[in-house]
């Protein structure tokens, strides 16, 4: 069986291969056609965070981001994978600039007539607090780069878990042309602990796992329209989802530009009452 050309056949295969269990480099490789994976600015280039050593944190020689170019389902693609196991997938100066620059280079290629898709594997808590202001600055640059590129070609975000996608990078996810998530994924702006600290335990109990998953889990995000495809934790299923995302192309209107729709949706909310996940699902279905 040719795994490069038959993802849908693989999806039916009884032996699933977990995507979540893979590290960032393996994740990127697993999505690319056999023999096409080419890592750029890899660990041997040894560009590390200049800010971590002074704070007693051992830097990593890829700063937790893998940029790989190759083919996905026969299409020229750059896959950018964030390593959730390094500093919680947090975005620092180097890791963030790798992401923004790779997107910009894909944009240049598209503008020059060479169709290049982009896939972001998002496992990140957002800004790396040890690089605070530069972390936020590069997230703004990533967002600008996504917005520039998505006019030409689909920018596809994949949130598989287990870290999830939070903070400024949740905003980046929302800018993607197409979002894919598993049930093990979470997507939200503010983490549960931060909401509890800022707003109190009555607002959000960060120890209530059911509440957390019901509010920000992949299934809820899919059922309330924030995510386009909900997939199993399976390499073949994610490859099949990417194929669908590529086939759909650049959306006529990005979700982040659906102003009238979301303002109408919010107008129907009664904020004097606290909300739960099922109420939001019901409201969304009626919207």
């Amino acid at each position, binding site marked *: 069986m040719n795994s490069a050309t038959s993802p849908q056949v693989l999806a039916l295969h009884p032996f699933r291969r977990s995507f979540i269990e893979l590290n960032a480099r393996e994740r990127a490789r697993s999505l690319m056609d056999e023999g096409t994976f080419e890592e750029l600015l890899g660990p041997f280039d040894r560009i590390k965070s200049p800010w971590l050593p002074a704070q007693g944190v051992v830097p990593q020689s890829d700063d937790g981001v893998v940029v790989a170019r190759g083919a996905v389902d026969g299409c020229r693609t750059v896959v950018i994978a964030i390593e959730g196991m390094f500093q919680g997938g947090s975005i620092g100066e180097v890791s963030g*600039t790798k992401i923004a620059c790779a997107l*910009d280079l894909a944009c240049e290629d598209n503008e020059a007539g060479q169709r290049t898709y982009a896939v972001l594997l998002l496992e990140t808590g957002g800004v790396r607090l040890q690089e605070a202001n530069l972390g936020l600055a590069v997230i703004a*640059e990533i*967002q600008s780069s996504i917005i520039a590129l998505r006019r030409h070609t689909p920018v596809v975000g994949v949130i598989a878990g287990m870290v999830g996608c939070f903070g400024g990078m949740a905003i980046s996810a929302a800018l993607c042309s197409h979002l894919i998530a598993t049930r093990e994924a979470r997507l939200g702006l503010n983490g549960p602990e931060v909401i509890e600290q800022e707003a109190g335990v009555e*607002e959000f109990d960060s120890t209530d796992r059911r509440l957390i998953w019901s509010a920000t889990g992949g299934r809820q995000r899919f059922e309330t329209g924030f995510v386009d495809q909900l997939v199993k934790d399976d390499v073949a299923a994610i490859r099949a989802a990417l194929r669908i995302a590529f086939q759909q192309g650049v959306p006529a209107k990005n979700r982040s530009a659906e102003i009238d729709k979301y303002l109408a949706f919010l107008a129907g909310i009664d904020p004097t009452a606290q909300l739960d996940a099922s109420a939001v699902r019901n409201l969304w279905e009626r919207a």
Partner: protein
Amino acid sequence: MSETELKGNRRSRGRIWFAALAGTKCKQLCSIGSVLAGDTDLGGNRVRYLAVVPDPENRFPRARSGELGLEEGWILAKHIREVTEEHQPEVRRPIIAIVDVPSQAYGRREELLGIFLACAAAASAYADARFAGHPVISLVVGNALSGGFLAHGYQANRILAFDDPGVVIHAMGKQAAARVTKRSVVELDELAGKVLPLSYNVRAFAQLGILHELIQGVNADAPTETDIKKVEEALERAIADARVGSRNLDNRLRSPEAMQTRKASIEVRRLLTAQWRGS
């Protein structure tokens, strides 16, 4: 004085500077009290000013102190896209974000209803305006924090800020950062003195090379006519500069300050570009 104003320990600088720059008589375009939008003439340009301000009556309780909440994000997006979708492509009107946002809104409703998307709506509206050729200028008059700044201001072609102790541009508010990192505020300040990107001081932020101009000698809380004139001139210079500059954010890496403090960013871009093009 309202609870919100007491909490902030000062009047809303966003409101003060919107009134000072857009004028008290300019037609208020917004349907909600927490976002101000209006058009005014500035140096031959018909500019749109936008600000997010405290509104004790905000129907979303977690967004009453000037935070960037659900409706704030989408309403900003609406009034930005109004300008970009005008049928006068030969006149790309400037859009000016007056920034004084303490944070994004923290709340359960906000998460459930997709505040990350509301922030993305505003950020993408600003960025699309910039790519379409509108000068997008951000004027930081107070706080520019975290997701609030990503949504409202950080996508500008040019960012201006007052050189004032009340101006704080940061990834996370100091109190919240202390709680999250389990450090005291004093410890946080000590560390920030040693590691430049951690600093809460706007002069240290200016060393990162992201700011176009740090505006000196302006009374941020009670501007005089002279102060307002000075800020308007700075805005006009920034608009003129944005009109002739590139439409992406590469100017942030080309400033003399960035050459010093963002060597790693510059090296990543140089090497990655060479490898991408070389193979």
